[in-house]
């Protein structure tokens, strides 16, 4: 499959050459990268299982994307104007791709694993940048093809062969547009700033951008049942500046007239803007890329003591907390490592911190599902029991944090656990779990609690407590079942990067079931009490089981 994608990415080879890239090198680099992606490190004696896991993971994501794609193609069903319906559809896909690019593939452009393999070779910056971009493009296509499958079938059925042919072109251009816009912004920031500051700037940009895009995706007007005849074209002139509309306007030439106008100019924009983006990116932004990227981490220097260092010496809160929350030294070690790494790992911050913003956004999304405005929804809150939604959704922050706490670029540094007398390793794992609860979950849960108490009053305190226990049960349960790994001991695989957004949303379904059980027990006090006792017992039981995880049960990567 990868070979096919590689051929597809190399189809415009003459164009890549005209941009200044060396296509022989480009093809060799891409081939090598895809080969490496297929050969993830394997743990002792776990070769077969993990290979199967990857395969199953790929099939599951493909099914998920196809399913989500069918849902996204709803506008094509309900909006009679083909151009408008496609513009809506392309907008959704564009937003999904952009969000995924920011959250899942954000660091692919800047990782400097190539520092010793590619940077010393006579490879042009343009070739290197294009290789990185096309590598990401190949992974985007693995998402885009299943996602757009339903729409493609529908268009073929409704419009005939012309749409069948034009749709793949439009969707490829859309993918390119999204890819080059996001990475173009990164490269502009890289060009304007110093290598040292770039890390921080990009990290903030990614957090903010992912929150903004998430908000756009979920808080956009959802009333897509547009009455085309009632549209006033004069009010919608701005759509002609929207990239997804440019691509949709291709259909005007296939015999689908539209009310909103557009024509030669929008179609030309659709065709030429992606090309312009590529040219701008490779020709103007790529030069100096290697020098800058090498500078990001390339400080083989001994720096004088820094203010941050002095502060670290004085502020050793993590040690006090580690002692406060843990009895065994192994648990303290796990707590400390998790506390410090989660503060400093850019990847962790980028992946987990936005999830705290996602919860309120998703809450508002659910509140306004019935078509009411945000103000109306908030004023009706007091009479409802929707605080349960918010309480159970908070589990997403903890579970998301837990899954990313296992990953690190320096997963090989976990050798220290294997050479030191840690027994059982579950102690380290439970220490790290506690650190995440104290540092990430508790402050977030307290903030939610304050909001809930403000709206619903003190009478809901028992529900808050029960929900907190249930969320902890859920998190420890997930950790016990699918995350029995030492903290920061696993490598992140590009192959598994796509679709995190979709998977994350599915993670929300399970707390939904728990929340529903809680909801059913609301009127019956003894049932609620029984549930509380059951939850506490379950929490204790699973907690103990997780904390006593033996070496035989720990999942390992190769050291």
């Amino acid at each position, binding site marked *: 499959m990868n070979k096919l994608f590689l051929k597809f990415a190399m189809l415009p080879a003459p164009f890549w050459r005209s941009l200044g890239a060396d296509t022989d090198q480009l093809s060799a680099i891409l081939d090598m990268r895809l080969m490496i992606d297929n050969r993830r490190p394997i743990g*002792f*004696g776990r070769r077969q299982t993990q290979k199967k896991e990857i395969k199953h993971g790929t099939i599951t994501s493909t099914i998920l994307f196809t399913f989500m794609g069918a849902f996204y193609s709803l506008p094509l069903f309900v909006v009679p104007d083909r151009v408008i319906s496609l513009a809506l559809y392309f907008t959704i896909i564009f937003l999904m791709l952009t969000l995924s690019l920011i959250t899942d593939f954000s660091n692919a452009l800047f990782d400097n694993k190539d520092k010793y393999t590619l940077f010393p070779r006579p490879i042009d910056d343009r070739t290197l940048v294009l290789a990185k971009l096309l590598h990401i493009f190949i992974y985007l296509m693995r998402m885009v093809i299943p996602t757009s499958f339903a729409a493609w079938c529908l268009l073929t059925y409704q419009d005939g062969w012309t749409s069948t042919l034009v749709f793949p072109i439009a969707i490829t251009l859309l993918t390119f547009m999204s890819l080059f816009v996001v990475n173009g912004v990164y490269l502009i920031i890289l060009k304007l700033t110093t290598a040292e500051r770039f890390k921080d700037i990009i990290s903030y940009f990614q957090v903010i951008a992912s929150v903004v895009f998430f908000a756009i995706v979920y808080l956009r007007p959802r009333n897509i049942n547009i009455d085309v005849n009632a549209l006033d074209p004069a009010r919608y002139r701005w759509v002609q500046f929207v990239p997804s509309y440019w691509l949709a306007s291709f259909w005007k030439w296939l015999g689908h007239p539209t009310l909103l106008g557009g024509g030669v100019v929008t179609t030309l924009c659709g065709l030429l803007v992606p090309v312009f983006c590529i040219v701008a990116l490779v020709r103007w932004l790529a030069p100096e890329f290697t020098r800058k990227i090498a500078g990001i*981490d390339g*400080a*083989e*220097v*001994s*720096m*004088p*003591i*820094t203010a*941050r*260092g*002095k502060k*670290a*010496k004085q502020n050793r809160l993590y*040690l006090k907390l*580690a002692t406060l929350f843990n009895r065994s*030294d*192994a648990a*303290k*070690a796990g707590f*400390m*490592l998790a506390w*410090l*790494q989660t503060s*400093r*790992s850019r990847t962790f911050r980028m992946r987990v911190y936005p999830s705290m913003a996602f919860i309120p956004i998703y809450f508002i999304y659910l509140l306004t599902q019935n078509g009411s405005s945000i103000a109306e929804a908030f004023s009706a809150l007091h009479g409802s029991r929707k605080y349960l939604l918010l309480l159970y959704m908070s589990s997403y922050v903890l579970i998301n944090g837990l899954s990313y706490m296992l990953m*690190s670029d*320096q997963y*090989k*540094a976990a*050798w*220290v*656990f*294997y*050479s*030191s*007398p*840690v*027994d059982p390793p579950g102690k*380290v794992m439970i220490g790290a779990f506690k650190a995440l609860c104290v540092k990430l979950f508790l402050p977030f849960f307290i903030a939610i609690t304050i909001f809930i108490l403000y709206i619903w009053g003190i009478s809901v305190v028992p529900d808050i407590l029960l929900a907190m226990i249930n969320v902890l049960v859920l998190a420890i349960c997930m950790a016990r079942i699918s995350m029995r790994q030492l903290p*920061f001991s696993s490598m992140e695989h590009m192959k598994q990067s796509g679709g995190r957004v979709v998977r994350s949303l599915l993670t929300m379904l399970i707390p939904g079931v728990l929340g529903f059980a809680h909801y059913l027990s609301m009127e019956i006090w003894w049932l609620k009490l029984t549930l509380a006792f059951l939850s506490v017992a379950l929490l204790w039981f699973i907690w103990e089981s997780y904390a006593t995880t033996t070496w035989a049960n720990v999942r390992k990567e190769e*050291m």
Partner: protein
Amino acid sequence: MTPIITIQGLRKQYGDKTVLNNINLEVAPGQIIGYIGPNGAGKSTTVKILTGIIQDYDGQVTVLGKNLRDSVMEVKSKVGYIPELAELYDLLTPREYLTFIGKLYKLDDHIIEDRATRMLTSFGLIDNMDQRMDSFSKGMRQKVLITSGLLHNPSIVFMDEPLSGLDANAVILVKELLQALKQEGKTIFYCSHMMDVVEKVSDRIILINNGTIIADGTIEELKQGNSDTLEQIFSRLTSNGDFVQRADDLAAAMSDRNDLKL
């Protein structure tokens, strides 16, 4: 004297490949053992078994009088391991990293603090103690790694190329450290390709090739009355010595000359 390490019939296979083939060895306490061999000979695998990192092997291994299979945690707590240019969590500072390591060995906070400060001072890293290690050079990282391997005052220290990345002064310091540790009665199991260092510091040299011990003795015993250096002995025992021809062939291959002698 009771051996501190005893290995009997040690075998290790990865799939069809035999990495260690019937290793038998006894190490007396307080010695510096130079464990040498070509790449892929099985040095690191031996060390990983002795430190309890690899636990599926055949044969009997006794360390500090304990059967390694039965008392792996006890052994781990009393040995130190310094791997070659190993990864460390470099987002942490040396102080934080060493505190973390100290906790894994159940050391008290004040002992960690005291030992870490004194050892890093000796390594000239005290000013960098609160800096994140992602800006450190290879040598600085290696110094932190050596400190982390010695922090819990182990009885046996396993060093796998500990001089990697160190500058000349640091190499001298580590060589002196080896002697100082020996004076303290510690046993050192030292793997390296730097033959001159091994020759100078080792009380006993063990040469391994293709998973089998092919030479074992003091440097004088290995010389057998010749004036060979360790490097020459190594080369004689582990290769057919045709380096000039092979270098020629390499150069010829590079310039597309066809005078390769096959």
